[in-house]
């Protein structure tokens, strides 16, 4: 295969180039680097980084533990709050969370490398096979968790710790949810998502049933009848449609499918990519798809976003990463139609946009960008069946502060609930907190509605 062959082809690069392109984005700090990085932490009181972390990890403590040569103790500090601390260390937009809050930004515009230090500690413990938790005496209670993603795994683990028996149902052949299927390959190398699933499940008391789709293989009411409580961590299964001409042409794909396919392929040389690729959208998914398209050997990759840079959901860091890989990010362009040639994608007609009195409007100016492949990354939607009368709001599951849904005995968390921010770390926090809520209810032997008499 020639590197610049027009059309969608696999094998544009040499095996060495694929290996290089899909290696670890930020390799783990070695011990010396970790000591130097940890030295910079001021051990702040009531630390702003800790407040900024959705899972409230005691960051100053875990960094101090690294600096004193106690990475195992450090890992426990992390896992106590976030059992998926290993993946969060890789995928958290730390530049918008803990590291943004770091007081070193004020001091010298360079935060402590919290994310990389977290990875150092969690990797050290996981590589040593160190387990920190054991199950409490069996409660005799059984809880169903739907979805083996970050929210479901976090909930299952915390429930198992409390002595409950957990069964996780997941539609996909592998567990991990977006950690397995939705994250750019270079952020989670060496099959880390599966290793982490194994690590979480090794506590025992958690059974996973893969290939089980809610609404097809079982319904929520089926589970309610069999279990003492149900936790829904079902994520967002649907994607928004583009609703323009040519959307069904070969060469037009959902970015999430492309990302998943790439993650599951052992040999990146088998994944076909266009010579010219356009990605529609402005979030992390758009960046992940665009960067990886480039890494697969696409000559020209353009992100088209219909609003301005300041409106993009992708973090500044992610935007810079894309730019550094040669991705062109264009703003104020909306898709108008997909141009076909010989039954395949040949380009995309875009229309310029602007804000008029706060509303996004098209200006009437148009242009065409040549492309043989188009990825849609214009948002995911909550899509599920088999949930019965479960109340949704604004297209997501409505929950209260503890993760309780409108149905007694049913909790929910992660991307599927209203008010989330679509972050792995937030899903973990919600799963963990819902598990605590479930445990409180079960421990009291009461249903919440009855408790308030």
């Amino acid at each position, binding site marked *: 295969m020639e590197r610049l062959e027009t059309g969608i082809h696999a094998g544009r690069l040499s095996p060495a180039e694929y290996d290089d392109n899909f290696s670890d984005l930020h390799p783990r700090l070695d011990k010396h680097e970790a000591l130097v990085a940890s030295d910079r932490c*001021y051990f*702040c009181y*009531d630390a702003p980084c800790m407040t900024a972390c959705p899972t409230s990890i005691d960051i100053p403590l875990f960094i101090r533990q690294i600096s004193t040569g106690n990475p195992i103790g450090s890992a426990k500090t992390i896992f106590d709050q976030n059992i998926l601390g290993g993946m969060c260390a890789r995928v958290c937009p730390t530049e918008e969370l803990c590291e943004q809050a770091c007081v070193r930004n004020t*001091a010298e515009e360079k935060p402590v490398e919290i994310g990389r230090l977290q990875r150092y500690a969690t990797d050290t413990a996981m590589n040593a096979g160190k387990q920190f938790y054991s199950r409490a005496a069996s409660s005799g209670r059984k809880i169903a968790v739907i979805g083996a993603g970050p929210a479901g795994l976090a909930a299952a683990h915390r429930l198992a710790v409390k002595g409950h028996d957990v069964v996780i149902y997941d539609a996909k052949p592998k567990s991990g949810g977006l950690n397995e299927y939705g994250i750019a390959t270079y952020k989670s190398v060496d099959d880390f998502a599966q290793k982490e699933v194994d690590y979480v499940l090794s506590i025992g008391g958690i059974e996973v049933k893969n290939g089980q789709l809610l609404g097809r293989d079982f319904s929520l009411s089926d589970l309610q009848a069999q279990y003492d409580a149900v936790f829904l961590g079902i994520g967002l299964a649907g994607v928004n449609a583009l609703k323009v001409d040519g959307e069904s042409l070969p060469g037009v794909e959902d970015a999430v499918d492309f990302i998943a396919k790439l993650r599951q392929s052992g040999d990146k040389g088998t994944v076909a990519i266009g010579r010219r690729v356009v990605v529609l959208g402005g979030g992390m998914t758009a960046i992940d798809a665009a960067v990886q398209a480039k890494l697969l050997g696409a000559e020209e990759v353009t992100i088209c976003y219909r609003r301005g840079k300041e409106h993009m959901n992708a973090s500044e860091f992610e935007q810079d990463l894309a730019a550094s890989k040669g991705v062109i990010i264009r703003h104020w362009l909306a898709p108008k139609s997909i141009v076909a040639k010989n039954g395949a994608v040949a380009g995309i007609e875009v229309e310029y946009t602007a804000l008029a009195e706060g509303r996004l409007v098209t200006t009437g100016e148009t242009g065409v960008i040549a492309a043989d492949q188009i990825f849609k990354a214009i948002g995911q939607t909550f899509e599920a069946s088999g949930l019965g009368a479960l109340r949704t709001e604004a297209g997501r599951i409505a929950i209260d502060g503890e993760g309780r849904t409108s149905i007694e005995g049913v909790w929910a968390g992660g991307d599927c609930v209203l008010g989330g921010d679509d972050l792995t770390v937030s899903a973990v926090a919600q799963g963990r907190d819902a598990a605590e809520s479930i445990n409180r209810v079960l421990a009291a032997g009461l249903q919440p509605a009855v408790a308030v008499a």
Partner: protein
Amino acid sequence: MADLRNNFVGIKSPNPFWLASAPPTDKAYNVERAFKAGWGGVVWKTLGEEGPPVVNVNGPRYGAIWGADRRLLGLNNIELITDRDLQTNLREMKQVKMNWPDRALIASIMVPCEEESWKAILPLVEETGADGIELNFGCPHGMSERGMGAAVGQVPEYIEMVVRWCKQYTRMPVITKLTPNITDIRRPARAAKQGGTDAVSLINTINSITSVNLDTFSPEPSIDGRGSHGGYCGPAVKPIALNMVAEIARDPETSGLPISGIGGVTTWRDAAEFLVLGAGNVQVCTAAMTYGFKIVDEMISGLAAWMDEKGHRTLDDITGRAVPNVSDWQYLNLNYIAKAKIDQDACIKCGRCHIACEDTSHQAITNFVDGVRHFEVMEDECVGCNLCVNVCPVENCITMEGLPAGALDERTGKVVESTYANWTTHPNNPMARQAAE
């Protein structure tokens, strides 16, 4: 331009930075390199008696403690005096002095506490053309077990006796090097003066164990599973050394006795502090052992720049300038009231001042004001202790501000007085002297 030329008990050197008697001054090769780098003088590593030289351990000789970024803060040494033949050292000293006539070359000496031993070595040293001798009464390890080094320095009568012999048997200036491993540094200094010493130098190293290996339970440095206390030096010992220098400088019995200041001098600023506390020059070792001889460039240029900025022309203009301000606690002005002040623009909101004050001191710093993270001193609680200044990671973010006379101290409700008043006259002091009527 400041004149850094140094005249210490008649020994002239182009600057006041000497290398202390230690591994860096072990032989001609090192000393030549030091002089090329610009050092004003060296105290040659301690010579022993004629005959088979001492032997050193063949394992690690140094232990250390580190600060952030593995910056070396304290070093510990179990090396003994020179393990080279006396004649070799003497020959090299003579050659080096001939090569570098403008630099100071001092011979450090340690021989048994017997008159004959000192009488025998002094003419040999004198013959090299050395500018002076330094009596090693400080080495705290190994040699002290054999009745030398610190074993002598810990007995004022021995110090006086040996100094007297030296003054009797050589025309060279005598510098007596003191050990800090005693309870009152003034006693050995007085004894040295009594014996007729020309100067004292201090401090030698401090007995120490820097760390213990928690796998083998051996102190570090570990020699085949065992460790011995060593001599502690480096930046960590500077405060101890400064105090001892000041104690001798302000003691009426030794006031005016020339002092060569030693102990953790790492920068020009450290050197200046020793000088203003009464030292006539300084000796450096650990800093050179950490960074190499080149650091003397920074010391020379930094000291000169500071002197120029402040209008001090010569070293005599600065030596001892801080001594009158070193006081017994009882004479400190209790009417002086200071309060901490936090520069809100410089504050990075780490909260360390708050938690230090809240947990361990006087509960005088806020952490939230009107629901916002905000650190501010509550003057009605602040006793002016300075802890917040010391724990703040940003320099000059927190400062201590003295209240002017007439201002209200919100903590005590009293007006600040302009007069000086100390503990000796304080009403709470049962021993207070009656104020003169």
